[in-house]
């Protein structure tokens, strides 16, 4: 028990130091974006455009395929796709967070969580650019932003809390086992189709919905942000899953991280 506490503290101290030095993660994250779009006249707004094009194309195909009314389907698809992009790129890039920072880790002693924080920040910046599409879609269809939208901020914070432990946990694991990032990429691809993003949950037959919706953590994590933005309240179950997952995930991750943090430099 005492040992467990020591390990927990070891992990927590690194994370705390990284949060305290958030400025560095911020600088590095911005730098990544700048580097990607240097000398491009639109810069990161290319992301907004690509997202808009993708949503337009998917909306056209699937909206017609499922015969959903566009006014309802397109806002649903837009916010779902934007959130999923955040989830999948953050988790995938989290997997390689430490391996990509190899040169830095081997040269400078920084709190290692800084490298994960950098990836998270970079993806939040991209998310903010993608998010621009959502109000545009609402505007096109003349749908007002519902009053419940404020609640989406709480949901987003909860989603980010969950993403960050997943990124850290997988980052450590993937540094040791280099096949895991590929496995994660594939799993996330499967989750994309299992989670209601390009199809609406009301299309499901009653019995399938229990499995595909309630047992799918990604459904709940998306729902706590998406539902308030679309004018409904997420179910109590979704909130519970989000909160329990964040707490349990972080406690486990901090212990895991505390145990293996000092090995990361050796695994690179």
């Amino acid at each position, binding site marked *: 028990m005492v040992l467990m506490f020591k390990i927990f503290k070891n992990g927590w101290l690194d994370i705390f130091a990284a949060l305290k030095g958030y*400025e560095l993660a911020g*600088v590095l994250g911005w730098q990544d974006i700048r580097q990607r779009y240097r000398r491009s006249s639109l810069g990161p707004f290319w992301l907004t455009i690509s997202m808009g094009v993708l949503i337009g194309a998917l909306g056209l195909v699937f909206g017609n395929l499922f015969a959903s009314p566009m006014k309802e389907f397109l806002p649903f698809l837009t916010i779902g796709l934007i959130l999923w992009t955040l989830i999948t790129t953050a988790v995938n890039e989290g997997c390689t967070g430490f391996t990509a920072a190899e040169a*830095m880790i081997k040269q400078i002693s920084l709190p290692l969580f800084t490298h994960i924080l950098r990836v998270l920040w970079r993806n939040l910046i991209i998310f903010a650019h993608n998010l621009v599409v959502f109000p545009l879609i609402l505007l096109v269809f003349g749908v007002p932003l519902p009053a419940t939208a404020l609640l989406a901020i709480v949901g987003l914070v909860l989603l980010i809390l969950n993403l960050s432990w997943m990124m850290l946990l997988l980052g450590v694991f993937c540094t040791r086992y280099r096949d895991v990032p590929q496995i994660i990429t594939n799993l996330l691809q499967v989750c994309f189709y299992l989670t209601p993003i390009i199809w609406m949950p009301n299309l499901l037959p009653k019995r399938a919905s229990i499995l595909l919706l309630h047992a799918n953590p990604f459904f709940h994590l998306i729902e706590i942000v998406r539902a308030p933005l679309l004018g409904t309240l997420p179910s109590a179950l979704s909130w519970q899953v989000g909160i329990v997952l964040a707490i349990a995930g972080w406690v486990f991750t901090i212990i895991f991280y505390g145990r293996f943090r000092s090995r990361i430099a050796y695994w690179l």
Partner: protein
Amino acid sequence: MTNILINNLCVEFPIYNSTTGRSLKNHLMQAVTGGLMGSNEQGHVVVKALHNICLDLKEGDRLGVLGHNGAGKSTLLRVISGVYAPIGGSIVVNGKVTSLIGLSLGMDSEATGIENIYLRGALLGFNRSWLSSKVKEIVDFAGIGDFIEMPLRTYSTGMQMRLAFSIATMQQPEILVMDEWLTVGDADFQEKAQQRLQEIISKTSILVIATHSPELVERVCNKMIRLERGALIAA
């Protein structure tokens, strides 16, 4: 009170992508340079980069670390910088360690000189407001002039190094870690740089420098160790 206390320090690197044959292992054991190879309890191939190193450095100490390529000099410096945690033994470092190794790490060739000052500065742990107050001083010292607003890729190699050196030596370190003596830039700059380096080194509380030159150790250091294949053979 700055000090470094190293007790029975061991560092070994697991090599996961080596096909572990005993014969191969035995074969490699006879290699002349590099750390010792062996295997750990889990049966992984490991390179024993450092073993049973003991050191006690106090304020005012200047330690020269001699040894062949692969003797463990850089690994020792990295352990002192806090990059590698000891596998066995212990290390206690009281004081902030600054490393003058990899001066241009993290610089972006597409970013301007100014942007690079903030980028490198952040990596060195300088905060933004302190840096902004020092930008002029850094630019002047590096002698970059108006080029500071240009992307780094337009700089000559010498100019890049001058800028990197100027940023890294802006702050007086407590514990300074170096790999060989630094020489940067052309004749004019070298003189300036040497002066600043001398000044920093004279004020730093503890210096650890890895080198191949016994003359350098003679000139700068009051303590010397020699590493061979990860072990301390002379102190």
